[in-house]
Each structure stands twice: as structure tokens, then as C-alpha cells.
């Protein structure tokens, strides 16, 4: 038996229904339906976050500006100047110059310490590899994301800036959020 395609053809109407009643409904009924939809958006209220005043809370694992840490009991720096973070950095934005700890000046808990520790924030891609590479958890990613500045050199964060307690400008998400 030869294949008859007409049996499988389903008639599909690709135009609105004709006639004065259908037309009047299209003009006024559908318009009213649309107006109801838009009014529902007014009732919902704006979903805008008024940024500088109101900030989106970040998740605990948000990768923002880096922080360097000290031991809480002794106050010594955790960083021993091993440069593993600089080696791990794909953007090559970390510069570490290590120096030996001496009995007179003890900066870190290990043998050596970072005499210079700089992160160029204009190059950093916030991948968090430095945090992973660090054997002493000396560097972690913070929550601060407001890093704009007027000159490029201002975006090179020194060790003092990274060690200092950041001004917590970014709210953290509560578990319920």
C-alpha cells in the first residue's frame, strides 16, 4: 500500500480567529488581560537593589579581595614567604620577596617571612588558586568586591593593606537566604 501523506497532515490554524466577536475580544479582552498582567507587576513591587545604599549579600565562599592572616595568640604572620601562591597564580599578580627571621625581629612563625607581599588587583582574576596553594592558610579570599580606584598603582595592595582588618563593607548572606 503506498504511503498517503495527507492522512498524517494535521490542519494547524496559524492566525487568530476571524469574525467581529473574535476581533472585538482581541482588541479589548486581550488588552484587558495584558493590563492585568502588567498591573500584577506593580503589585509585586520593584526587585531592584539600590546598589550603593543596598548591597547584595555575598555567599560565604565568595571570592573577593584577599586577606593575609596572623596567628591570633602570638600575633605572628602566618605567611612564611614560600612564594607558592605566586607560583600558583595564573595571572601572575602576586609578588613575594622573602627574608630570614632573626631572633631580634621575628615576623612570622616559620624560618622566613615575606618582606614584600604585593597583589596587583588590576590583574587578579579572583580564581582562588593562591588560597589553595598556601600550606599555612596565610592567604584567603575575602568578601570585599568594591575595588575600584583612580590610578592603577592604587590597585597594588601591599602586605600592610592585606593584613589590616578589612572594612567590612559587604554583607554576608545568612544561612536562610
Amino acid at each position, binding site marked *: 500500500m503506498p504511503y498517503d501523506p495527507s492522512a498524517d497532515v494535521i490542519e494547524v490554524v496559524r492566525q487568530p480567529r476571524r469574525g467581529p466577536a473574535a*476581533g472585538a475580544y482581541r482588541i479589548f479582552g486581550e488588552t484587558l488581560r495584558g493590563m492585568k498582567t*502588567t498591573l500584577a*507587576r506593580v503589585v509585586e513591587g*520593584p*526587585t531592584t537593589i539600590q546598589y550603593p545604599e543596598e548591597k547584595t549579600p555575598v555567599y560565604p565562599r565568595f571570592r573577593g579581595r584577599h586577606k593575609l592572616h596572623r596567628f591570633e595568640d602570638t600575633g605572628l604572620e602566618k605567611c612564611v614567604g614560600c612564594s607558592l601562591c605566586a607560583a600558583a597564580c595564573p595571572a601572575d599578580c602576586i609578588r613575594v620577596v622573602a627574608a630570614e627571621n632573626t631572633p631580634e625581629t621575628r615576623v612570622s612563625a616559620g624560618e622566613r617571612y615575606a618582606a614584600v607581599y604585593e597583589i596587583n588587583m588590576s590583574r587578579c582574576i579572583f580564581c582562588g588558586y593562591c588560597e589553595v596553594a598556601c600550606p599555612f592558610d596565610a592567604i584567603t579570599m575575602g568578601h570585599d568586591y568594591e575595588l575600584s580606584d583612580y590610578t592603577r598603582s592604587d590597585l597594588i595592595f601591599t602586605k600592610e593593606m592585606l593584613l589590616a582588618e578589612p572594612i567590612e563593607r559587604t554583607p554576608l548572606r545568612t544561612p536562610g537566604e
Partner: protein
Amino acid sequence: MIGLADVNYFEPWWAQLVKAVVIFGVVFAVLPILTVYERKLLGRFQNRYGPNRVGPFGLIQPLAEIVKFAVKEPFRPTTSVGFLFRIAPAIAILTAVSALALIPWGNVQDIFGTRFGLYGIDVSVGPLYVFAMSGISFYGIMLGGWASGSKYSFLGAMRGAAQLISYEVSQGLALVGVVITAQTLSLTGIVNAQRGMWYVVPQLAAFLIFMVASFAEANRAPFDLVEADAELVGGYFTEYGGTGFVAYLFAEYVNMIVIAALATTMFLGGWLMPFGIHPPGWVDPIIVAAKMMIFITLFIWIRATLPRLRYDQLMSFGWKILLPLATLNLLITAIIVA
């Protein structure tokens, strides 16, 4: 000599001047607030705030914009026709403002012993004058588009002109139904004829036709093909910047006010309150303004709701549906009244 239109009630010349200045001042004080009202409401319809930075609730926003527009460099394309290019926005805004004179804000009031009509002038040709003005405003659009010497402006102007002409017919015919019911062409007379019942009830069809035609007449969404930015950049005012652009923008808003006022006067009983409430005379303009706000809000609401029509849809809707409907409505009204 052919007699000019009768003027039903008029004051001494100084009162006419004062009234003209007051109406002009009040409307142009309200206009910037209207622009910010539209943008804020439109924002709400789209789950956002709209302008809210300049001044309390963003109310100073239009001031900032006007200053910005006013200090812009008045440039024009090399292909443009200088004189017409400059005069076209002026025509647009002049005709829009002239129509304001007819809006009845209230009945004749006794203020400090002098009797003032709370309207610019009460002539016996009311709606005809408004239509005449919107007929001339067509030149504002047409000349603006043509004198710009740009194809986008020209296309936008052609569309605007065609749209204005085709919808003005239906709009006029819808109003004729009201006029023959009221038996007068004076706008205050029409309001006074609505003491028993607002014409929105017996003339519901005319009201709906008038509203739809008005959206097209004011070049508002969903009939804003004139300024269809997706295909025509900006329509007839593509080449205008600075004050010329502001003139066209304000003309559009004044047209919106005039149409809202016309709908209020013709269908919603002007300054009359329903259920036989008779407030003191000074409330009249507030009632008219409140009723006009309903229409202006509707304009904005529709703009937030409906997508723009296609050009052939616009034309076939105007000529094939709206015009026969308006004619039918006129015929039925005429038979019932006569």
C-alpha cells in the same frame, strides 16, 4: 463677510490675558512632573523604580534634563532645510498649546466680584477648533521629518502624517455622536448637558473608539510607529537634539493632556461629580485634573502593556474597523436622537 465663531462668554481683555498666562503656566509646570510620573509608573510596571536619584523621589529629574537639553549645541544635518528645520518643532508645540485654550476646567465662577469662566475661551465650535489644531500639528511632524533631510526622519514623518489623518476621522466621528446627543458644540455646553448622565454610558462605543483613536492621534504606544526606534531610529525627530527635541517631546505630552481633557469633557462629565454631589466651584479644576490623571495613567498603562502594531495592521485597523464602527455608532445615535 463670513461670521466667525460665536463666543459664548468672555471677560474683559485683561482677564483673558491673565487666564492665558495662568493656564500656560500651570500646564507647563505640570508637564515635567508628568514626564517623571510616566517614567516612574513605567518603571513600576517593569518591576523597577524609575528615576529616583535627583531630588525627593526623583522629582527634580526633569529639571536636570531640561538644563541638559537647553545647553546642548544646536546642530543640524548638512542636508537639512534650515528655516523649516527650526520652525517645525515650534509649529508642533504651538498647535498643541493652542488646543489647551478650549479645555473647560470649571464653570463660570465669581472671583472678587468679577465673573471668570474657568477656561481659556468658550467658543461655539469647541471640538472643531481642537481638530483644526491637530490638523495643523500634522505640519509640525511633516515639516520636521522632511526638513531634516534624513530618510529615517522622512519615513517617520510619512507614517506620522498618514496615521494622524486616518485616525482623526474616526476620532471626529466618535465625537459627533456626543455632539448630536448634547445638541451643542460648545465644550462647556456639552459638560452642562451631562448633568443627568455622563456620556460614557449612552455613548460607550463612541468612548472606546475615541480612546483607541486617541492613542494613535497622540502617537502613543501601541500606535507609536512614528518613533518606532527599532526600525526608524527615532522617527521624525531623529535629527533633533536639544531644544527642538524637547519641543517635540512636550508637544506629545501636551497632546496627551488635551486628549485626556477632551475625553474628560466629552465623556466623563468634565467638572461634574456623580450621584448629584455639588462641591463648591473652586473644586472644579481639581475634579477635571483628577479625571484627566485617570486617562493619562491609562495611556501609560497601555504603553507598558501592548507591543507596537505593524504598519499595515495600524492602517487596516483604522480604516476597516474603527471607521465603520464610528460611522455605525454615529448613525445609530442620529436615529435615536432624531
